[in-house]
């Protein structure tokens, strides 16, 4: 699997995701600077976490208009899979590649902690290594992860199985007390219509090392490698 990671001014978790991709695929991803109008041929494009443009104005708003994003949209339209983690998810919603929006956490505070996620859909190239309903433990680290969408969009996503992950308790129940940011329906990650684009707030890449954070996030990278070789 050849992956390209797009880096923006203010990205700060690109190394984390590069390591995870490399560990899973055995290949070093290429890192593409946001100002570049071309993304080299690849099987997967990744938008990493961080604070592109300082999260000023709105998280992801400015990055969504960079030259590399134009190219990303073109490739995504051709079916090249796209993964956006945290700030990457925010950029994808701002760019219109995923529905809804990510608002300030309901607590109004940045939150960094381990959370439990329930895998809602294992029929996708991002999640096929997990069982449907499986609970995994990965960290979140964000200030604007409060997902919202209008009722029709939500209904459509729920009906079509486009919710990828939900925040749950360790034993797999949704509970307002374990929702770290107030997201509607406890949504942690979503697919686009064709399930070729995934955006999620948590950081599976920081759970791909037995010595640092555990291995629960590795399934996502393994899924991608299995699906894309």
């Amino acid at each position, binding site marked *: 699997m050849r992956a390209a990671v797009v880096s923006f*001014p203010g990205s700060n978790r690109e*190394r984390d995701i590069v*390591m995870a991709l490399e560990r899973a695929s055995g290949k070093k991803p290429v890192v593409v600077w946001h100002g570049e109008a071309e993304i080299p041929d690849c099987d997967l494009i990744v938008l990493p976490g961080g*604070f592109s443009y300082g999260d000023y104005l709105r998280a992801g708003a400015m990055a969504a208009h960079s030259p590399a994003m134009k190219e990303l949209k073109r490739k995504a339209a051709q079916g090249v899979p796209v993964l956006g983690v945290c700030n990457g998810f925010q950029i994808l919603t701002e760019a219109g590649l995923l529905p809804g929006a990510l608002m300030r956490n309901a607590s109004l505070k*940045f939150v*960094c902690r381990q959370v439990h996620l329930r895998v809602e859909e294992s029929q996708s190239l991002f999640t096929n290594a997990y069982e449907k309903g499986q609970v995994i433990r990965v960290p979140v680290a964000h200030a604007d992860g409060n997902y919202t969408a209008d009722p029709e969009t939500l209904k459509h996503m729920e009906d079509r199985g486009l919710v990828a992950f939900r925040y749950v308790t360790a034993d797999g129940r949704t509970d307002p007390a374990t929702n770290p940011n107030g997201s509607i329906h406890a949504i942690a990650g979503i697919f686009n219509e064709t399930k070729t684009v995934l955006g999620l707030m948590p950081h599976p890449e*920081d759970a791909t090392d037995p010595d*640092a954070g555990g291995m629960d996030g590795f399934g996502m990278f393994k899924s991608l490698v299995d699906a894309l070789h």
Partner: protein
Amino acid sequence: MIPNAKITDAVVKEHGLTADEYALLLKIMDREPTLAELGIFSVMWSEHCSYKSSRVWLKTFPVSGPKVLQGPGENAGAVDIGDGLAAVFKIESHNHPSFIEPYQGAATGVGGILRDVFTMGARPIANLNALRFGDPSHPKTKHLVSGVVAGIGGYGNCIGVPTVAGETNFHPSYNGNILVNAMTVGLARADRIFKAAARGPGNRVLYVGAKTGRDGIHGATMASAEFTEESEAKRPTVQVGDPFTEKLLLEACLELMAEDAIVAIQDMGAAGLTSSSVEMAARGGLGIELDLDRVPVRETGMTAYEIMLSESQERMLLVVKPGAETIAERIFAKWELDCADIGVVTETGHLVVSKNGVVEIDIPVAPLVDQAPLYRRPYVASPKRVEIKAANVKVVDPVHALKRLMGTPDQASKRWIWDQYDHLVGNDTIQTPGGDAAVVRVRDTRKALAMVVDCTPRYCVADPKTGGMQAVAETWRNLTAVGAEPIAITDNLNFGNPERPEIMGQIVGCVEGMSEACRALDYPVISGNVSLYNETNGQAIMPTPVVGGVGLLDEYTKTVGIGLRQPGQALVLLGETKGWLGASIYLRDIAGWEEGAPPPVDLAAERRNGDLVRRLIREGKVLACHDLSDGGLLVAVAEMALAGGVGARLDASPAGIPAAGWWFGEDQARYLVAAASAEPILAAATAAGVPARVVGTTEADSLTLAGSGAISLDELRGIHEGWLPGYMS
């Protein structure tokens, strides 16, 4: 030279210079200074920049050792950690600004210390913070906690450096003067450490980073003056941090450092362009000529005085090799930052600054720096306190006392704070907040750095020398408890007004104790910071010499945490317990008595006990380890139980030690370890001459004290985790 503004006595006084200091200035200048020149003397001779009250004492610290690559005197210190790498670190205070504007004050404090570290060519890998707030019931405290924590998080999270450890205490002595000390640890190539000495007359001086505004003019002198109600009302222009620009500046500087372009580099911290240019010139024994018309500004009509004294953030000053200007321009353009050629290194030994073609400043650098006032201020030693016998302290059921202690502001969990700090970015944080020391991996090696900040002000006020020793020893112990070899420290001396002999006595005592401990433990001081005048209306803070310690693990998987993870393990206490309750948390928070001499520190025992613990951890004989500090044995067991989710059954207190002293005494140099079997630990302890004793066994779900009751971990967790979120909501 511009026509002189009238320099009256009042103007001199406003600039914080005494009559004697001004007389010295006149002697150096041999004429009346311009206002801008006066401003420069004023900031350079402020306590903050010149260390005039503390310098003679700082000289007594041990600053060298086989691993020290850079001791105090540069932007940050550096130690060799093998593999051609160096750990670069320093701590810095932003106390006054954080009291005035907690969010921006704390945020710019983090920004400043990050710059100190990456100026040296190091990539920051972790931040720490030591916080002291007033009484929780004081009307300002909550607002200050919320702003400071948000500010530290806001800056560190955005720039993407994990904030991995810290300490947070509350005490009424900080009601009018909170302490916000921030520390950064970075990694550099040992053979590529950048310094700030200007070299090579003719080399160009470049200004890079953000534009200059009228931010924090006179911040450095403010940090050197005592607070009054009035100064709070005046509200000087506070600096606003821009972590996004700092992230770009960090990446651009590191990119430029990888080229062969830089002669010297210095961040613009307190006193901005003034201290950076003066220090660069002074260290190189040269002069610098600046043309202020070329300085990127974001406001109109700025005077030379304002530009030289502005404390706008996220700026750096560089001296580059001939012809390297274009490399710098290209790199800074890529990162969309200003890069301006504002001057040249000269042979004159003078700082010469012009604006609109007129020379407004012409100061001989050497005397400005070398003849800066230096005071050996009079001091009186703190009165000795009586020893309090444990037998004379009120007896409370230990389980009941534990319940109360675990929910006090100082002992309660600080999760509410570190939840707001990204402590994971980089995915190298092996030990997260909540343990004895944080552990962060060194990329591309098997190594890791352990790091911690600590100070126990109630010991320092009770006996400055012992308190100073204890602060050093406790960091050493915390590093040891995670299996690391302690290497060196940085320190932040936070005190009241040094012009008062009793405060000066605290400074002298603490420094003496710290020096002695550093010597005994081969644990040199490689950088630090001093913050004086932390007092309001004559009410000084407790002496708070915060110590930041860094240690090395050769194999990161060999570290242990504090969590008890399995029932049936032996709990072994290493070190001697006499049951010392003087100046303890138990005495203060349970007996309501803030008194007594602090526990003595026996540095030979520290070393012996610590070396044993570290060896046992390396040999894999220890499964969990926690040093005993505030609250003694029982609080330590409770913290270990909560951290791992497994409880313990503890034996009754031994005969000959009053129960309160056994459970809550704060005798030093002690560790509690969990092991599959006690035998090898006891044998090794005997061989090493370390007192050791089995105190109990791990057991699921609750803490049970033989003969005096039990508490479930759920209840204990509720108490421990409940206080801070409850207080802040």
